[in-house]
């Protein structure tokens, strides 16, 4: 038995995605910049993928840029705006992914000012907090759509309205949304909402690793972070990762095809898992009951070490995580869990279960049963 419930870390690529990648590796292997037929065929794959990604967001294809992943998309949005220096202030939250936090911390160490908004016990901020934090020289507000550890959704539309009002009053403020965990899970409409920049990643939606995208609203300029060619309108040079981009396009088409049914099915499984976890004694469920994406359940199992529980579950064929994969080798507790008020001990007794479109009710029941036994077993070992 193998039950993979770590889909917020990465997902199993869809067979159709693998097929697209393979075709681009073996048949349409040209360099899209080449003028001959092989180049043209590769270019066509990129055009198709750009169109597919744009459709999932309801935006124009020319406003989608491909990157090497979510980290680069976030980095390009933040540093690309900082590079144009139209102001010196940033607003963000305390629970962002490290690919947003670290570039901002680096800027804060230079001549920039970064306001990190605290979150409530669900990991959520209120649009009013953003409103209070905005300054005339705020260049960017960066808030994730869905938190990668908790699944908590932020009030993106409301924050966007606040930012737009502020901009109408003459400030250069733009709004960036890290939607890496949100894509394919909740509806995203950056153009309708007035979001200026939105980051996506392929491998969280059954696409390939090594590819992501950044939506850039028309008229928004970014300083390129790499130099060396005219690819991606000069904003992101380098030979296009054609197989990766083709795979991303295939993943986008797949997620768009049955978006609502899949989200509803995942939500039902999420509820099913949540109910069974709640039945375990001395548990705190950190994912909010309302306003969370349908794929994450984060829970604290008091007096059990998260890492021990993870490996115990792994012996039963259940694969989960203690939080963000990017920091899994780091012994310090998750900044997100501390931000929502967990103490260090509880933060280190926490697991994240994350579902995918392929997760079944049987898998949820089996995982929950393994979890129940593992927690009881490990607690029995603890000397009171």
């Amino acid at each position, binding site marked *: 038995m193998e039950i993979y419930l770590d889909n917020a870390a990465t997902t199993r690529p869809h067979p159709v995605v693998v097929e697209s990648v393979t075709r681009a*590796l073996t048949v349409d292997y040209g360099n899209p910049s080449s003028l001959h037929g092989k180049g043209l065929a590769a270019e066509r794959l990129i055009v198709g993928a750009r169109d597919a990604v744009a459709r999932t967001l309801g935006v124009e294809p020319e406003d989608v840029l491909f990157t090497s992943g979510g980290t680069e998309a976030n980095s390009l949005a933040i540093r690309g705006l900082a590079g144009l220096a139209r102001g010196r202030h940033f607003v963000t939250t305390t629970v962002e992914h490290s690919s947003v936090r*670290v570039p901002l911390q680096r800027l804060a160490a230079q001549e920039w000012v970064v306001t990190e908004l605290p979150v409530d016990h669900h990991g959520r901020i209120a649009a009013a907090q953003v409103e209070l934090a905005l300054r005339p020289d705020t260049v960017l507000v960066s808030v994730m759509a869905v938190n990668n550890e908790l699944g908590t959704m932020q009030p993106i539309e409301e924050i966007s309205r606040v930012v737009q009002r502020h901009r109408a009053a003459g400030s250069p403020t733009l709004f960036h949304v890290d939607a890496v965990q949100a894509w394919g899970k909740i509806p995203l409409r950056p153009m309708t909402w007035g979001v200026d920049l939105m980051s996506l990643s392929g491998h969280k939606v059954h696409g390939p690793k090594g590819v992501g995208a950044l939506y850039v609203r028309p008229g928004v300029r970014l300083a390129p972070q790499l130099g060396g060619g005219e690819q991606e309108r000069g904003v992101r040079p380098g030979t296009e990762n054609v197989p990766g981009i083709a795979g991303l396009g295939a993943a986008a088409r797949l997620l768009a095809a049955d978006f609502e049914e899949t989200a509803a099915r995942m939500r039902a499984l999420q509820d099913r898992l949540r109910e069974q976890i709640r039945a375990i004694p001395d548990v705190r469920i950190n994912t909010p009951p309302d306003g969370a994406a349908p794929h994450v359940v984060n829970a604290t199992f008091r007096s059990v070490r998260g890492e021990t529980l993870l490996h115990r579950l792994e012996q039963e064929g259940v694969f989960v995580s203690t939080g963000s994969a990017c920091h899994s080798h780091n012994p310090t507790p998750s900044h997100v869990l501390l931000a929502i008020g967990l103490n260090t001990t509880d933060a280190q007794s926490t697991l994240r279960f994350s579902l995918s479109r392929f997760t079944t009710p049987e898998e949820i029941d089996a995982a929950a049963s393994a979890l129940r036994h593992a927690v009881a077993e490990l607690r029995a070992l603890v000397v009171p």
Partner: protein
Amino acid sequence: MDTRIYVDHGATTPTDPRVVEAMLPFFTEQFGNASSIHQFGQDARAAVDRSREVIASALGASPAEIVFTSGATEADNFAVLGAAWANEARGRHLIASPVEHHAVLEPLRFLQSRGFDVTYLPVDRDGRVDPDDVRAAIRPDTVLISVMHANNEIGTLEPVAEIGRLAREGGILMHTDATQSVGLLPVHVDALSVDLLSMSAHKRYGPKGVGALYVRKGSNVARIQHGGSHERNRRAGTENVPAIVGFGVAIRIAMECMHEEAVRLRRLRDRLIQGLVRLDGAHLNGHPVERLPGNVNLSFEGADSESILLALDFQGVAASSGSACTSGSLEPSHVLSAIGLPPEIAAGTIRLTLGRWNTDEDVDQLLTVVPEVIENLRAASAGRPRRAVPQRAAQRSGR
């Protein structure tokens, strides 16, 4: 049967079927995030480390000195910007050849806009840097020298080892872009005395979207992509596991038969050059001997590159006018300008880059098709005023 001939391996290569086969399990079964602590993650991590060992060993480096990137463009930017930012307190002077890839030249220009000083070395008519010029350019505040190992357009090999020794003596970081040569020619970081070396998978029958930067242990280089603690805190972002696996296998395959393949490609290359350079008004660009095994770069008077390429494409031959990265541009290539090729000659340049699956029959066919295409184009433009051929260019055709 596919009779088309792909001779654009300098732009990109078909992925070797063995590479694709090695990659597939990392999409379908071992798809874990290399940072995850469970078995899926550990399998992915082990695969990334195996590739790191293969690539390190190909370069004579140790695995901890290899940082995977999204490609050679990122590796070049990482080397140039990372070296400049990390050593800013020591000095703000950099030295480079004028025939570097744009992925080196663009970050240098960016640094110039931030007050850094860059000396661009002269090159001879083959595009070669003279180490004596490097010696003369070195200053107390020089922090980086960047000279590519093999030029992507004209194939000329640069005297990197000699330049590397000068850099070493001066305590200056030495970077070489070896994107075109790794796996095709011996590239040993100690023999070349380099501290930083960029490479790419897709030029050597590996996948696109992955490359690496060799960073000599102890070198002071700032990271340019921030976020998670991937790649020993030197390059943030979830590792592109399948591509890294493919990269390792591609390099392993290339190393296994590198010398035989280089001999074979040189033979094909020289047949092609000898057959084409004798055409009326043809000039070979780049060094006749010290050049990449598969590279042929020729200028034809009285024909323009784009027309030649389109006519060749129509005949089933995929070639390029130079660097694929600037193929949309009408400006003469910076490399051809740097070697002093007059613009009217540069306008008729094509690059034929041979690879693993090209055969003697392909060369036979090219030796028929290319002269026909040139002749037809010249005939079509006959009646238009002939362009004057400068003396220097006329002399070049002698080789």
